[in-house]
């Protein structure tokens, strides 16, 4: 590409300098971090942001247009859409983070096994190939159709759909590392197996998994919203962005705001996570950054 980075410094830059350097080269990451920070603060301090009880029904004020009193209007049960949208951030963030952490945990476990145990490799990868050919949303739909609607089940369903991809990634990293001279040297010098795994293999999976984790978080937030939107997600008693939009579905020609505001918040949240992910990827893997 046109921009050639300056000659690499010989001494290893301290971590703080690396972060500052990455931020300077990727201004979009700063935007992402600010937006994401804002979302997290909004979710944590939801009760103090001029909200009322998001479940508070009031037949007297049904389907009010957005106004000074009801910033985002009210829905057909008279619930305040602003309050529901602010509280909805909690569900999206919880699902995004939980799915990212869980699927990376399980994916790491399966990936390390497949990368090291040949017998397990064929078996596990066959299963993963099969799972990967089921479109993730349909996989989650099937799981949700057979379980009771709950936040935990949504997280489990999306996690199961994400595990095969993480397993693939970890496996390819492990297979690449096994051929590296420093691992061969460790083996040759009689380092124990679990020590090689913990000291040499595991640390090298951190960077790609961190990047992958942000992308999983973003896609889990979208999947949760889609599942709730089509009625296979979090129970309607929980105000999640997908649920709010689902309730506005039949009314969208007269009450656009029920769908518009949660939709915008969802898009901004996903954009923020994606921008942070892109920045991390560029900062952690400069070789890849130049290509992507």
């Amino acid at each position, binding site marked *: 590409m*046109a921009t050639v980075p300056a000659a690499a410094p010989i001494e290893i830059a301290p971590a703080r300098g690396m972060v500052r350097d990455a931020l300077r080269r990727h201004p979009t990451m700063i935007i992402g971090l600010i937006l994401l920070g804002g979302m997290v603060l909004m979710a944590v301090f939801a009760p103090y942001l001029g909200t009322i009880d998001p479940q508070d029904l009031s037949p007297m004020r049904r389907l009010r247009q957005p106004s000074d009193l009801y910033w985002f209007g009210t829905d057909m049960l008279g619930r305040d859409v602003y309050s529901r949208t602010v509280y909805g951030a909690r569900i999206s963030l919880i699902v995004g983070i939980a799915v990212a952490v869980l699927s990376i945990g399980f994916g790491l476990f399966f990936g390390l096994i497949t990368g090291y145990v040949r017998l397990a490799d064929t078996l596990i990868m066959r299963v993963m190939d*099969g799972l990967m050919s089921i479109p993730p949303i349909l996989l989650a*739909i099937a799981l949700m159709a*057979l*379980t009771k609607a709950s936040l935990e089940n949504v997280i489990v369903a999306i996690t199961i759909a994400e595990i095969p991809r993480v397993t693939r990634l970890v496996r390819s990293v492990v297979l690449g590392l096994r051929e590296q001279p420093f691992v061969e040297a460790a083996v040759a010098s009689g380092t124990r197996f679990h020590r090689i795994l913990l000291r040499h293999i595991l640390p090298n999976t951190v960077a790609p998994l961190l990047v992958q984790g942000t992308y999983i978080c973003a896609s889990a937030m979208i999947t949760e919203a889609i599942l709730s939107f*089509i009625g*296979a997600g979090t129970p309607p008693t929980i105000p999640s962005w997908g649920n709010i*939009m689902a309730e506005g579905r039949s009314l969208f020609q007269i009450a656009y705001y029920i769908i518009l505001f949660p*939709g915008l918040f969802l898009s901004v949240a996903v954009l923020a996570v994606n921008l942070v992910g892109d920045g991390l990827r560029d900062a952690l893997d400069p070789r890849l950054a130049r*290509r992507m």
Partner: protein
Amino acid sequence: MFAYIVRRLLATIPVMGVVALFVFSLLYLTPGDPAVIIAGDFATPDDVARIRAKLGLDRPFWERFGEWAWMVVRGDLGISIFTNLPVTTLIGQRVEPTVALTLTTLLVSVSLAVPMGVLAAWRAGRWLDRVVMGFAVLGFSVPIFVLAYLFIFFFSIYLEWLPVQGFTSIREGFWPFLERLILPSAALGITYIALIARITRASMLEVLSQDYIRTAEAKGLAADKVLVGHALKNAAVPIITIIGIGIALLISGVVVTETVFAIPGIGRLVVDAILRRDYPIIQGVILIFSAAYVVINLAVDISYTFLDPRIRY
């Protein structure tokens, strides 16, 4: 070559086997009694017993799985719990809208995304590249149904250019058919376009730094000839691969798009089935969609040998 195709065809059997086994065993693996959950909150014990017998949950797993798998192989996907009609009939009635929507989106997306990626790579680092890449980031971030509603608000309700919802068969005229596919295809295609454009750009950048490109430029070949004839041809394999893998996005997106635009396709069928917890339909649709995905990616794999003579099997 022929032996390779046969070998690849055989390799899809275990993959589809895993899909079938997984979709089937979900009935047994999920916590709680699926018959009770499917029957719903207001079911009588009789209803539950009827559903249990219908799904064969009262018999041993392997016996039931063998029977079901043999049925599927013969093209029978079972009977819907709610409507009592064969699942294949229900899916058959809904094929046209889904195929029309997916194919239109596929064709339009590929013919837009590849040139976008090529131009971005050609102008890497300049404003055109930034616009394309900015679009790609946005395309990954705005969920299909949010985009779909934004399109409806703007093009159908505000400008009144296009119909809000619905589907018209191609037999009733080409324009009414196309008119109702424009917005759904646009909404469905954005993420797919973003994905293909991004990979096209990356793949092109790799090729554009090669010596033979410099040679082609040095001998005075026009830019378009270099880009298409020399670069794109050599960058094709990753692009075709992502077009195949990205089909999964389209299939997942169809479920949502058909819901927003009230299109009576297979995606809508599955959404209605969720609300009624009609598991045989969900099972059947997953099998059909997964099979389509596997077959398309098989075709992609085989196409490599035609695209790149260096790849031999």
